[in-house]
């Protein structure tokens, strides 16, 4: 038992040491330094930018990450967190706003807001531009492998084509998968109409035998590896796939799609509002935003940044689609009241054999 005991003692020492280190780290920050707590998606900022922000402003940033909008919402809503700035998506911003969890931004402190393109302002989730500053944006579309799909891809209908049976990846998310089906059928993806939802549900059940898997982020690697022909993906992921596999292309169907935004907001009850505004302003500064968008690989809402990017990125419809393609696109509204209807449809799709 001696060796075992030694191993345990060793582990214990490691633990105590680690705890001490962690403790010291925490203690050091308690000084009069200005600080800011930021809550963002994982790996969704260039870490260099956080460092340069700290250096330029002297504000210490405590930076945490979440996996989904809903995870973040539960933490913020329950009062179990004390973040100052968060970067949720459109519909979640409506929900936070409805729950009174957002603080108005003083835009006189965020002069760089003027750099944001006009088409990214006055959006439904923040119609008067009081609460949010866009961070990244994109679309949902179809990524396809040109070697396996030779016909033009311009409609969601291709996802129901039996030719591609067991080569299709769908999104494992009720809102997104039902949403694109609604668009395909010519309905709004924010509908609460039970008849429309039932039709969409039937359509998805019909499609199920053709689907290889319902995935979220994993579809990326599967498409790069050539494991499937078609996948419903977020535009940012499509950019990544196209970079890794030249056979992949991206299409935004003519029926319209989901246009999404991740925007910076200040959470209610913040004790560091000035620092939060400073941070938002910093992230919106064109040189910083450019560095950030290059790291993340999504699309920036700042035209000045867009114009400075290499031509192949600017021309890539996954990053910066023409206005024509977005004609029928819609942004998600918050559907809290109607979500059980979506859930019912989705559960039926999932349990269908």
């Amino acid at each position, binding site marked *: 038992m001696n060796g075992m005991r030694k191993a345990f003692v060793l582990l214990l020492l490691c633990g105590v040491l680690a705890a001490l280190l962690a403790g010291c780290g925490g203690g050091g920050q308690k000084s009069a330094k200005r600080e800011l707590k930021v809550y963002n998606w994982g790996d969704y900022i260039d870490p260099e930018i956080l460092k340069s922000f700290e250096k330029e402003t002297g504000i210490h940033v405590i930076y945490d990450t979440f996996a989904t909008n*809903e*995870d973040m919402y*539960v933490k913020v809503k329950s009062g179990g967190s004390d973040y100052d700035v968060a970067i949720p998506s459109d519909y979640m911003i409506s929900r936070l706003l409805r729950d009174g969890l957002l603080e108005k931004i003083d835009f006189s402190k965020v002069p760089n807001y003027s750099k944001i393109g006009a088409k990214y302002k006055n959006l439904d989730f923040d119609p008067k531009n009081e609460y949010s500053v866009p961070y990244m944006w994109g679309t949902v579309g179809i990524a396809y492998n040109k070697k396996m799909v030779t016909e033009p891809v311009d409609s969601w209908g291709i996802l129901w084509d039996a030719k591609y049976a067991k080569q299709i990846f769908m999104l494992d998310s009720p809102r997104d998968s039902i949403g694109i089906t609604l668009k395909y059928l010519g309905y709004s993806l924010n509908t609460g109409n039970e008849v429309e939802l039932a039709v969409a549900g039937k359509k998805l059940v019909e499609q199920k035998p053709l689907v290889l898997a319902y995935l979220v982020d*994993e579809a990326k690697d599967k498409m790069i*590896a050539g*494991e499937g022909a078609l996948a419903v993906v977020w535009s940012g992921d499509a950019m990544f796939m196209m970079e890794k596999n030249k056979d992949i292309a991206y299409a935004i169907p003519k029926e319209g799609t989901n246009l999404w935004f991740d925007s910076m907001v200040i959470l209610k009850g913040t004790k560091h509002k000035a620092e939060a505004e400073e941070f938002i302003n910093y992230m919106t500064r064109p040189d910083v935003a450019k560095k950030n968008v290059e790291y993340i690989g999504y699309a920036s809402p700042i035209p000045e940044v867009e114009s400075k990017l290499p031509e192949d990125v600017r021309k890539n419809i996954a990053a910066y689609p023409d206005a024509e393609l977005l004609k029928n696109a819609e942004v998600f509204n918050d559907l809290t009241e109607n*979500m059980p209807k979506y859930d019912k449809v989705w559960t039926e799709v999932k349990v269908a054999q």
Partner: protein
Amino acid sequence: MGRRFLAYPYHLWTALFTVIPLALIVYFAFTDRYTAAFTLDNLRQAAQPVYLGVLWHSVWLAGVSTFLCLLAGYPMAMILAKSGVRYRRMLAMLIVVPMWMNFLLRTYAWMTLLEKNGAVNALLAFLGLPPIHILYTDYAVLLGMVYNFLPFMILPIYSVLMKMDKSLLEAAEDLGADAWTSFRRVTFPLSLPGVYAGTIMVFMPAVTTFVISRLLGGGQYMLAGNVIEQQFLAIGNWNFGSALSVLMMVLILLSMVGLSRYDKDGSGGYFL
């Protein structure tokens, strides 16, 4: 029975950290989402055939994977128990160490291994065998469950087998029992407490796992864990989610009553 200085602190511990959180969930299960008034609607909804079907599928998969873990794990536990002191401790550690790597990373690695053009099929092709397509099926989910829970079956059995009274086995041999008979009549019955513990530690978490079914099962169907997670997060209906999990808990604990009839030892009192 006079000395109970340990029992009370544990009751206090359970009351604080199990009963109170449980009471909270039960409260959610029996109240309306918007008005917070008492209602049975959530439970009625949870008892719909759709959800009972999901629950049944989860229990079935968890049951099969528990059985597979036992089948694969028992011999390993015996080998461990029979090995030399040095070898055995090293081996026991070696069985646990893979579990220290992040679960998500390991599951992703399995996805890579099992895909159409993945490493497993490359190996099969090299050996001249036909490729297998098990990713996104029940088989992949079972594999993921067995992979993830196997150590929880091996080690409890091993720790019970290790200090088993050897004289009993010798007695059996003296009485002319062959190896199989002495295993069946002596070793196995004596190891049952370890088997029970392992079974519970594999079965219960397996019923509610949701990442394995989402990734390796390709999200083709829902298991109890997925449904409940979806209610709590994507739908934001804690009341219905709580009702589902209360219903599941009650059904499983009740079904365990059946199992406990086989607990002839009786001294354990493992189940109601």
